[in-house]
C-alpha cells in the first residue's frame, strides 16, 4: 500500500511544541515536516523524550502545536478549537495506548460500545472484537483479561468506528514479546484489511521491520526517514 499516489492524510509543516514545566521550557518538537498517506503503516521510532508521543498527540488532535501547521486532509488542525478537535477525534481517529486505558467497569463489548455509540458509521462491537481475535471474550471485564487481550480490546475499540487513522502509542510497551506479536498481528490485519492509515510509536527498533515507512525522531527532530524495501509480517518479528 506504500504508494505515493495515495491520498495525503496528514501534512505537517514546521511543527514545534514547547512545554513549560515550572521554570523550564521543554522543546518537545523542533520544526517537524511530515506527510502521511492513506493506507500506510508508519512506525515512529525514537528514545523516550524524542518527541514521538507529542507528535502523535498533535496528529490525533489531543494537543496543539506551539508553532507550525498540521493539516488533516484540508482541515487545519493547528487552528482548530477544542470543539472542532473533539469532532475530529470522534469521527476520524482511533487511539491505542501503551496501558490500554480500558474502562474497568465495562466489559470488552461495552468498552467498544462506548465508542461506537457516538460514531457515525461504526462496525458492530462484536465484529471489531472478532477482528482482533477476541470473539469469544466479549463479556469479560478488563480485570479478567490478560495484558495482550486488553490491548486487543483497545485496538478493537479504536478501529470499531472505522477511523481514517489509527494512532498507537507504544502498543506493545507493556507486553512480553510473544503477546506483543499477537497485538501487532491484529494491527497489521486492520491495516491490511481496512486500509487504515496506522501510525505506531515505539522505541523498539525490531518492530520497525513491519512498517511501510520508518521515521526516526531524536530530540524533537526527524533524524531519519526510510522506506522498508521488504515489509516483514508481524509473526516474523522478534526482539
Amino acid at each position, binding site marked *: 500500500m506504500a504508494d505515493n499516489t495515495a491520498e495525503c492524510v496528514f501534512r505537517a509543516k514546521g511543527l514545534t511544541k514547547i512545554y513549560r514545566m515550572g521554570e523550564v521550557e521543554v522543546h518537545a518538537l523542533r520544526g517537524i515536516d511530515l506527510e502521511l498517506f492513506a493506507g500506510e503503516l508508519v512506525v515512529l521510532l525514537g528514545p523516550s523524550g524524542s518527541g514521538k508521543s507529542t507528535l502523535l498527540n498533535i496528529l490525533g488532535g489531543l494537543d496543539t502545536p506551539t508553532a507550525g501547521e498540521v493539516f488533516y486532509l484540508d482541515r487545519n488542525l493547528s487552528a482548530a478549537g477544542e470543539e472542532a478537535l*473533539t469532532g475530529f*477525534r470522534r469521527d476520524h481517529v*482511533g*487511539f491505542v495506548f501503551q*496501558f490500554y486505558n480500558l*474502562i474497568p467497569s465495562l466489559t470488552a463489548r461495552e468498552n467498544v*460500545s462506548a*465508542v461506537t*455509540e457516538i460514531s457515525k458509521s461504526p462496525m458492530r462491537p462484536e465484529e471489531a472484537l472478532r477482528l482482533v481475535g477476541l470473539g469469544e471474550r466479549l463479556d469479560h471485564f478488563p480485570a479478567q483479561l490478560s495484558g495482550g487481550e486488553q490491548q486487543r480490546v483497545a485496538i478493537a475499540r479504536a478501529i470499531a*468506528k472505522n477511523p481514517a487513522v489509527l494512532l498507537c502509542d507504544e502498543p506493545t510497551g507493556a507486553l512480553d514479546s510473544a503477546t506483543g506479536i499477537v497485538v501487532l498481528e491484529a494491527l497489521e490485519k486492520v491495516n491490511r484489511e481496512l486500509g487504515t492509515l496506522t501510525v505506531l510509536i515505539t522505541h523498539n527498533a525490531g518492530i520497525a521491520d513491519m512498517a511501510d515507512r520508518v521515521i526516526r525522531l531524536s530530540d524533537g527532530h526527524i533524524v531519519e526517514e526510510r522506506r522498508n524495501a521488504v515489509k516483514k509480517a508481524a509473526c516474523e518479528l522478534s526482539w
Partner: protein
Amino acid sequence: MTALNLKLLRDLWHMRGQALAIAAVIAGGVATLVMSLSTYDSLVASRDLFYRDYRFAEVFTRLTRAPEAVAARLAETPGVERIETRVVAVVKLEVAGFTDPVTGVLSSLPDTGQPLLNTLHLKRGRWLTPYSGDEVIVSDTFADAHGLHPGDRIHAVIHGKRKALTLVGVALSPEYVYQIAPGAMFPDFKRYGVLWMGRNALAAAYDMDGAFNNVSLTLTPGAEAQAVIDRLDGLLARYGGIGAFARKDQFSNRFLSEELKQLQTTATVFPSIFLGVAAFLLNVVVARLIATQREQIAVLKAFGYRPLAIGWHYLKLVLTVAFLGVAGGVALGAWFGQGLAGVYMELYRFPYLHYVLNPGVIAIALGVAGLAAASGTLVAVGRAVRLPPAEGMRPETPVVYRATLLERLGLQRLLSQPTRMILRHIERRPLKSLLTVFGIACAGGLMMVGNYQRGAIDFMVDIQFRQAAREDLAVGFIESTSGRALFELAQLPGVRHVEGFRDVAANLRFGQYHYRSAVYGIQPDGILHRSLDRNLRPVQVPPGGIVLTDHLANNILRVKPGDLLTVEVLEGRRQVLQVPVLGITKQYLGVSAYMRQDDLNALLREGHVVSGAYIGHAPDAAADLYARLHARPRVLGMVAHAAAIRSFYDTLGEFVLFFNMVATLLAATIAFGVVYNSARIALSERGRELASLRVLGFTHGEIAYILLGELAVLTLAAIPLGFLVGVGLCGILVVVFESDLYRLPLVLEPYNFALSALVVTVSAVISGLLVWRQLGRLDLVGVLKTRE
C-alpha cells in the same frame, strides 16, 4: 442502556457504601425539611379549615356586664359583620374521684340552634336539648383526661352555688385549639376544662339574665380590626369592657402561631446544615472519584466524547445519589411528619388533622437537594471536563508533602514515623481537613440542639417555680376582697404562709408601643412570689414605681428604667396613670409588670384590697386544703403548681422523646457519613502507599494507625468545635423562638455536651471498624504490579 450509563451504574455499585452514606445525609436533610414543611402545611390547612368551617371569630372582648340591648348597638358598629354575645363564667369544677382543684370555663350556647360564631365540632354524644337546665358539652381534652362520657355527671360551683351538670357531648372549639388556663404556664387537661351550657340556664346560675359579659365578632371584608376594636372599647367601657383584641392576640391562636413559626425555622435551619454537609461530602467524594478516573476521562475525550457529555455523566452519578437521598428522605420525612403531627394533635386539638404531603414540598426537597449536590460537585466535574486528554493520560505528579509545623518547631523527635505521616497528610490539605472537622462538628452540634430543649425547660421550670413563683397554690377570689381574707386563709389547717396579691388588667403604653397585660401588686418582702434580677437573684420591688420583665421592657415597650410608663387600667375606674419604671426583672415564661401591692392599691385609690393569695402549705395537707378552699364561695380558682408541672412534663415527655430520637438519628447519620467517607477516600488515595508498607512488613494494625489515626485526630478536633456549633445553633434557636409567651434560656448541661461527644465518637468508631476490615483486604501483590 448506553455503555456510559452502564459504567455509571457499576461505578455507583462499586462505591455503594459511600454513596449510601451520602444519600443518608441528604435523606436526613430532606427528612427534616419534609417533616417540618409537611407538618406545617398540615397544621395550617387543618387550622384554616377549622377556623373557616367553625366560624372562628376575628375580634373578642370581655366585659363585666351589659344588657342584651347593647348588642344591637354593637352590631351596628361599622366594620362588624356578625356579632355574638355570650355569657362566660369561670367556675370551680368537681369530678368524682379527683381531689385536685379544677378550674373550668363555662361558655354559653344559644338555647336553640347553632351559635353564629365559634361553633363546636361534636366528637361524641349529642347537642344540648333546647332550654335544658343542666346539660353541658365538655372539651375533649378534659373528657379524655378524666375518662368522662356522655351521661356522666360533674358538679360546678357557679357564682358560689354548686350545680350538678349532665354531660351530653364531647366537643372541640376553634377558640380552644390550645387549651390553657388564663394565667397558667402550661396546658393541664386534668385541671382545666372548657364546658358549654345553654345560655338561659347559665345566665340564671351566673346572675346574667338578659345580659352578657363576652362578645365575639367577625369583620366585614376590608374592615380594619384596630378601628373596630377602638369603637368597641369606646362602647363597652362603661359596661366594664377590659379591651377587645384581634384574633392574632387570641390566646389559643397565638400559641398555635408561635408553634408554626418554630416549624418554619426548623424547616430552614436543619435542612441547611444537612444539605451543606452533603454538598461538602459529594464534593470530596466526587473529586476523589474523578481523580481516580482521570485516565478514563482522558480516553473518553480522546475518542471524541464532548466535555459536556462527560460532565453530564458525572453529574448524573451525583444526581442519582441525591435522588436516592431525596426518595429516602421524603419517605422518612413523611413518617416523621405523621409522628410529629400526631404529637401535635395531643397538644393542639383539631377535629381532624389531614396529613398532607404537598407535591410542592417534594419538589422543594428535590430542588434543594439536587442543587446542593450539584453545587458540591460542580468544581470537581468542571476540573474533569477541562483536563486536556493528553495530560490526563500521564500519571499524576506526586503530591507535595512537607514537614509539618510541629516538626519545623523542632518537635519531630517526639513523633514516630507513622505519626509524622498522619500530621503531614492533615497539613497537606488543610481546607479539606478543616471541612471534615467542620462536618463532624455539625453532627455534634445537631445532637446538642436535639437534646437542648429538655435542659432549657428544666431550667425554666426551676427558675419559675423554685425561684420566682414558689407558692404551692395560687388562689383567685371572685372579686377583689379586703386584705382581711388573708387571715382566714392563714388559719386553714396545713397553711404555712400566705401572701396576698392584687392584679389588674391594664394596657401598658410607652410612645408608640403598647402591650396588654396584668399589673401584679405583690409583697415587697414576699418569700413565695418574688421577682428576680438579671442574675436570677430575688430582688424586692422598689417603692413608688413599676418593674417590668426584660422582654417586655426591652423588646416590646422599648422602655428603660427612669422612663414614665402609661398604665391604662382596664377595670373599675379605668384610670390612666403615669408610673415610673424602676427596674427590669428576668423571667422566661410570659411577661409581667410588678408593683408593690400597697403602691398599686394606692394608685387605684382603693384600700388594702387583694385579688387572690399565694399559699405555701404542708405537703400532706393538700387534699384537705383543696376541699376547704373549694367550699369557700369567694374562692374562684386555684392553681396547684406541683400538679401543673407534673402534667406538663407528661405532655412534654412525648415531644422531647420524639425530638431526641430524630436528632440522635440524624446527628449519627451525619457523623457516620462524614467519617466513613473521609476514611474511604483516604483509603482510596493511600491504599497503594499502605499496601506498600504492608509489603515492607508493617502490620495491619500499624497501617490502620496511619489511616485511622488521621481520622481520630480530626474527630477529636471536631468534638470541641461541635460544642461551639451546638451552642451557636441553640443560640440561634433562642433568638428565633423568642416571644412574649416564653423565652428559652441558653442553658446547656454537661449531659448535652457528653451526648454530643458520645454520638460523634461512636459513629466514628463504627466507620473506623468498617475501614479496618477493608484494610485487611488490601491487594498486596496487585500493588507491586500497578504502574505508578
